[in-house]
């Protein structure tokens, strides 16, 4: 195990150091994170990195292989374009968690903001808390699991992939081109094994899936903005 103190280091220095350390070290403990941006972006290798603190934007973008455990919060675009490996956020994340993710697993133990899993192409995103609006927007593949409440427009314009939800009111918050379907046995088993791996204790009975109405390329209507009050000047 090696300890890495980020005090006084720029994100570029940190990532350079991490790249060196991951070649030889199995476990890296990171302290004084001070909401660093771009932590472990494009990091390739095998190993476990534990951050004792919160991070800023683009944590673990293009991550390929390592396990990242953040003991605090993360900012926007956590796991952006992630390729393989794991990111486990013990608290909350900002908006756009795991956008365009290609593989690996992101687990958020707290809440996440809007557009979680936006344009995902593969891998798994598990949010134990609530998510904001437009979860899984324009998703091309992969799996999103939300244990808490989902926001408005869930699955807006999905092309492929699946969102498993527990929220009983999910029907009222669907986006365009998606429907609610029962979860099948194969999916149940896959999600169960994920839950087991990350120590999430939730029964599978109440889960439902949100899937596209039409898979692949399709025409979709632009959503209409809602006018609440007022008019033209």
């Amino acid at each position: 195990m090696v300890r890495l103190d980020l005090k006084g280091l720029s994100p570029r220095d940190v990532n350079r150091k991490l790249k060196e350390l991951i070649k030889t070290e199995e476990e890296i403990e990171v302290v004084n994170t001070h909401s660093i941006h771009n932590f472990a972006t494009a990091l390739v290798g095998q190993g476990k990195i534990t951050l004792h603190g919160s991070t800023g934007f683009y944590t673990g973008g293009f991550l390929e292989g390592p396990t990242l455990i953040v003991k605090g919060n993360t900012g926007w675009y956590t796991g952006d374009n992630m390729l393989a490996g794991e990111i486990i956020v013990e608290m909350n994340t900002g908006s756009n968690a795991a956008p365009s993710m290609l593989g690996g697993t992101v687990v958020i133990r707290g809440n996440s903001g809007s557009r979680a899993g936006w344009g995902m192409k593969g891998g798994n995103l598990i949010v134990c808390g609530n998510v904001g609006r437009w979860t899984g927007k324009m998703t091309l593949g992969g799996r999103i699991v939300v244990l808490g409440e989902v926001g408005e427009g869930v699955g807006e314009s999905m092309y492929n992939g699946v969102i498993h939800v527990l929220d009983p009111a999910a029907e009222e918050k669907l986006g365009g081109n998606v429907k609610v379907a029962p979860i099948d046995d194969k999916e149940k088993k896959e999600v169960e094994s994920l839950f087991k791996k990350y120590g999430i204790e939730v029964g599978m009975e109440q889960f439902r899936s949100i899937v596209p109405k039409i898979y692949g390329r399709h025409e979709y209507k632009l959503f209409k903005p809602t006018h609440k009050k007022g008019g033209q000047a």
Partner: protein
Amino acid sequence: MCGIAGLIAKDSSNLGYDLINMLKQLIHRGKDATGVAVYEDRDDIQIRVALTAQQYQKDLEEIIERHGSISNSRMYQGEGIFTFYEASLGVDPERITQLNWDIDTHPELCVHSLGRHIKVYKDQGSAEDLRKRHEMPPAKATHGIGHVRLATESVENINFAHPFVSYIHPELSLVHNGQFTNYFNMRRKLERMGIRFKTNNDSEMAAHFLAYQMKEKGIDLEEALYLALDTFDGVFTLLVSTAHQIGALRDRLGIKPMLFFEKDGGAVLFGSEQICLTPIVSDVYATEMDPGGVMTWSV
């Protein structure tokens, strides 16, 4: 990019500094200029003006004395070339609008705030620079808004920095994150109504638009914000403050961020990012405002 912050904290004696601490966390969203508008619990009329050079103090005081009396004036140098002038005025409230415009027509002077309750401190550089250069006399304050600027729309000049005020509604201030794509059309429309502009910044248009709707048309802040939502084009998040209210507006696509958190006991915090709430409340989960949303809080 730009970052905005706001705070409602009844009876705070260091609200201005609290706001600056919040803005300090948003330094990565811009450090061309930083500004705060603080609403104090007092009834006299105070003025804050930026002068391009000290020699224009005479001109400024001459203009003010045409409308009323000056007391407790002070002058100090800002972070850049600008000198700041601050004073309490004995002016008929009816004449504030005229006085504000008389000062603004002088090319070397720019009113940062003029009215009851409101005080706007804005200067070039980061929140740290603002704190270092501008001493905020302790006073009981109720609420305020702040802004860090990354100049994308107009020149890097502190008179073009936020918060913006409007001479039409002396107690209104506004901070904006985003761009108005129909700025020129809106400006022409407002100018035809007789509204005069001091800067070429698109956010000034928003301040005048809202001030005009509220003062001339007599509608309340919430209605004015709904009207703005239908009228403005582009991406924008606005925080608007009057003497007794803070209103927030977010565009329909939700491009620019806006978070808020209501603390027990009536305090409300606003910010572009979660991290800017941490100097006041550590580790809470703030609510993201809905796209196309309008919200108002009474102070």
